[in-house]
């Protein structure tokens, strides 16, 4: 369980998060929606300590991210998939996936490689194990990014705008994989501004506006006329994104 309580985050004078409370239970798939500057990416980055929090608390399975020794354990539990893929350019696909298990978790190289091959196979990239990231398409890179996250056996997967750099066709291949993961009971927190993507994978939607949670509803309720849509700010956001229904 991830428990976020009264989370504040400032960048110098700019207050990006103004007291966020959120609890994420196992096997939930949560999408965090919001416009740019709403603080949604910052919130995600606070969960695994990529941003230092200004005040409040973030606790993952009883581990406090503000404590240095506990943060490392949190990072082993949460794996992130990034918008720009950010694969290690100097390592082959297979090495990208095995690096963290071998170096951080102390898994043997053979075990890590076997698992990585199985993961690549499962996302349809079994033949790309020995190429360098530069030779892959964006969709392929992101599928490797997902394998890299899964390889550490995480309890939580954090998705940071994972489809924003992809064209629709590639988005579909990535979405398919994530849906399967959700069905297998993986806990996922996805930050996105793509409403269709959120609607398809998540069972709960959190809408962030100017550093505060505006609403936190099951997906079906969020999109119903008397649910999230009732709030003019959300309705405006949805219509601007072109998917208001």
């Amino acid at each position, binding site marked *: 369980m991830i428990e976020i309580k009264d989370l504040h985050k400032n960048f110098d004078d700019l207050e990006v998060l103004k007291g966020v409370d959120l609890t994420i239970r196992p096997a939930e798939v949560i999408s965090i929606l919001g416009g740019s500057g709403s603080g949604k990416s910052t919130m995600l980055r606070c969960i695994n300590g990529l941003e230092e929090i200004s005040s409040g608390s973030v606790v993952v399975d009883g581990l406090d991210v503000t404590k240095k020794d506990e943060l490392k354990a949190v990072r082993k539990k949460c794996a*992130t998939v990034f918008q720009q893929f950010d694969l290690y350019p100097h390592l082959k696909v297979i090495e990208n996936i095995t690096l963290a298990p071998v170096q951080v978790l102390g898994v043997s190289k053979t075990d890590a490689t076997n698992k990585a091959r199985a993961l690549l196979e499962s996302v349809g990239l079994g033949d790309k194990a020995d190429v360098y990231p530069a030779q892959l398409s964006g969709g392929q890179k992101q599928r490797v990014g997902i394998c890299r996250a899964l390889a550490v056996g995480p309890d939580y997967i954090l998705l940071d705008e994972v489809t924003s750099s992809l064209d629709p066709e590639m988005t579909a291949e990535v979405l398919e994989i994530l849906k399967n993961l959700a069905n297998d009971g993986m806990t996922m927190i996805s930050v996105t501004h793509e409403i269709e993507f959120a609607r398809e994978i998540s069972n709960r939607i959190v809408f962030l506006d100017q550093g505060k949670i505006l609403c936190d509803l099951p997906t079906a309720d969020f999109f119903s006329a008397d649910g999230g849509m009732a709030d003019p700010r959300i309705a405006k956001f949805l219509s601007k994104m072109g998917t208001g229904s």
Partner: protein
Amino acid sequence: MPDLSAMLEHLPAFWGGFLVTAEISVLSIIGSFIVGLIVALMRVSEAKAARLFALCYVDVFRNIPFLVLIFFAYYGLPEVGVYIDAFWTGCLALSIAVGAYVTETLRAGIVNIDKGIIEVAKSFGFGRIKLYTKIILPIAITSSIRPLGSVFINLILTTSILSAITLGELTSASKIIASTTFRPFEVYVFLVIFYGALTFALSALIATWHKHLNRYNEV
């Protein structure tokens, strides 16, 4: 008339000097790389004192002539009880002086790494040491092979200055040949061409190696 063929009989003497140049070059390349690597890590470290020290080091040694430094080391070290011969004095001075250029080259390699990649590694729980040894330094060093190569070629050319402290490297050996044969023009033309050819050959090798190590960037 200039006659370069007259140089042929002196090839063994050139060769002897060249071996010393080669030896001191290899040792100093290793030395300056180690110095440069350590100072580069200080240059990007979070400790302000380390950063300041690294900055001063680079600034000083890039703005003072090597000849001044080598005289300082040659005459100064015995004063403080360090008795090493011209060869090791040369290695030490070259390592420290060229280390400043290595520092700047590696620093550029480090700061040019995509920040996202470093964040990824952090998010996977990489500690500082693993982050540097597995991600940052491998990328920084492979992408810096070509500029580092230029720095090291310059180092090889700089070894000629060690002739000023009577070290018997290639330039010193040639000086002796020039004075015994009374053919200074031929000797020094030969030497310019020799150093030039050596530089071209090494540049070509480094370019190939750079391409090979950075093949992962090819789309």
